[in-house]
């Protein structure tokens, strides 16, 4: 029973991580309907920025964290400005292939600079954040993750529902041409959504780095694991991303615990194919009905 509970808690924790990793991805999809294959590399870039700031530059943790967020915000702007803006109005295939190309570029760049080894952050989270429920132990990182993800979830919910920029983003996602003709500044919306997504991705990258250590290959594979998560939750739903993440996380830890550890990494994709066949718009996604 303890094993079951521990797996349950682990699953929820891992799932939350997947959820917040997926948030940035959903941001971009929501505003520009681009599937970002470079998401894992964005996570890795954030994690490595942070690593460089705290180990090489020796900046205090909180300042480094904020600097990383700002840096990645700007990086998102730059990526959008130089790579994606020329493709506004182009076919979606080009945009997606561009993100695949960017992924390879970033991965190569990170490997060139930092190499493929595992790096770790120095310990900095206070032990007082850890939770103990009976025999179950929840590491401080996971508590921090939980808090952060709830904060971001609320912030994003408010942003998309209340702020004018958020409403512009939703309008652009729904119909780019209609939004343009109604005077929405589509370029600014794209730039902002990439910037915010890169920022969120860097934050998730740091959290993942604290837990598993920083390694390009791991982080970019998590960037791909975002796909089952968002398909399950619904491609355009941020809260769906969190819930999808938790479900996928649970599935992974339970198959890892009870069936076989090697099956663990494939289970999300098997689920993905199954969902696409049965409930393609996911649990919380907007169902589009199109008739000829």
């Amino acid at each position: 029973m303890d094993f079951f509970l521990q797996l349950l808690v682990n699953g929820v924790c891992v799932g939350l991580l997947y959820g917040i990793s997926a948030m940035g991805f959903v941001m971009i999809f929501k505003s520009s309907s681009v599937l970002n294959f470079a998401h894992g590399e964005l996570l890795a870039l954030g994690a490595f920025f942070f690593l460089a700031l705290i180990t090489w530059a020796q900046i205090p943790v909180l300042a480094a964290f904020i600097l990383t967020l700002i840096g990645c915000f700007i990086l998102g702007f730059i990526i959008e400005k130089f790579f994606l803006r020329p493709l506004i109005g182009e076919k979606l295939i080009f945009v997606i292939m561009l993100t695949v190309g960017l992924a390879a570029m970033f991965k190569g760049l990170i490997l060139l600079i930092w190499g493929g080894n595992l790096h770790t952050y120095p310990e900095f989270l206070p032990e007082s954040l850890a939770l103990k429920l009976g025999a179950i132990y929840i590491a401080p990182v996971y508590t921090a993750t939980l808090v952060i993800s709830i904060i971001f979830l609320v912030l994003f919910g408010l942003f998309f529902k209340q702020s004018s920029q958020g409403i512009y983003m939703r309008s652009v996602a729904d119909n780019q041409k209609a939004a343009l003709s109604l005077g929405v500044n589509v370029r600014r919306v794209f730039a902002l959504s990439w910037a915010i997504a890169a920022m969120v991705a860097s934050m998730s990258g740091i959290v993942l780095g604290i837990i598993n250590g920083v390694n390009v290959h791991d982080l970019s594979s998590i960037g791909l694991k975002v796909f089952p998560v968002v398909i399950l939750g619904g491609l355009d739903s941020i809260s769906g991303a969190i819930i999808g993440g938790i479900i996928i996380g649970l599935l992974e830890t339970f198959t890892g615990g009870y069936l076989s550890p090697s099956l663990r990494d494939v289970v999300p994709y098997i689920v993905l194919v199954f969902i696409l066949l049965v409930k393609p718009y996911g649990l919380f996604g907007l169902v589009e009905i199109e008739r000829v």
Partner: protein
Amino acid sequence: MKKFSFHPCGNYRENYSQELNIFETDFGRVCLILFLAVLFLVAPFVLSPYMLYILNMIGIAAIAAIGLNILIGYTGQISLGHGAFFGVGAYAAAILATRLGLPFYLAIPSAGIITALVGMIFGIPSGRLKGLYLTIATLAGQFIIEYVLIHWDSMTKGTMGITLPTATIFQWEISGDRSFFFLIFISLVLTTLFAVNIMRSKFGRAFIAIRDNDRAAEGMGIPIFKYKLLSFGISSFYAGFAGAIWAYYMVSITAEPFNLGLSVEYIAMVIIGGMGNIPGAIFGATFITLLNELLRYLTGVLMNVGFVTSTGLNMAPLREFVFGLAIVLFILLEPKGLAELWRIIRSSFRLWPFSY
């Protein structure tokens, strides 16, 4: 005897069959025949084994890239699983040859058909959904197939790999670079011919209609699901076929090379070569294979340079970076790819000195 025709100075076509001609002029036809004659009669006897090896790799990659181009360039669906489908073909051929003892001329096409069936399973989700869902489904396919290839020990021998028997036909053993050159390039010519012709048929037009506007295509009575699945099946067949030849060429195979990187490589071939252009796929395959060889050579050279080794730089990731850069630059600067560059060069020769 028909008159030898050159490029007309305008559009003088009078019926649809002229529109569908493969060669605009007889000059193009003669050029191609000459090229093929040089390729088959001169190249294999002049070139060194290393050059032949590179040519063979280009040929195998070109077969797979043509298949992927039918899917991406003509039907407008992206597959991120072609690396794995290539692997399915390779393993299918290996298993058919070792377990059932099929000769290679049966094993290779059967491997293609098996791959087409496997591919179509992952193509089914695209029927209910438009847009990018096939991409995501094939991404899942990539990981699931990789897992199966490694862990289905009783069939694929896991990480041990399988060694294939030598391909023989009428007591003639196909081994070594030169005899494989003939096998590969005859297959390439046949598959190219098939692809070019399928694009001129009802099926090809249906694929293009789906790519350009799927709603309009459905409105005009094209069963989208059927044609998407068919396109995907053909495309996977090509991948499996290429994989099967590759398996025979490499003699011993393991599951390692068939990863996501290989899938991206094939997509890069299609994009760089030119989407919706069959010769383009061959250009793309040539470009990527040569780029690969060049980068391998460069990393080899750089490994021995004192400065690089002393700073501890690892040059291997350079390949990944250059790859991504090539894709990005081609999309931003010349989205129609090398085929378009080739067309521009040709027409500027043709129009010289009066370019208007």
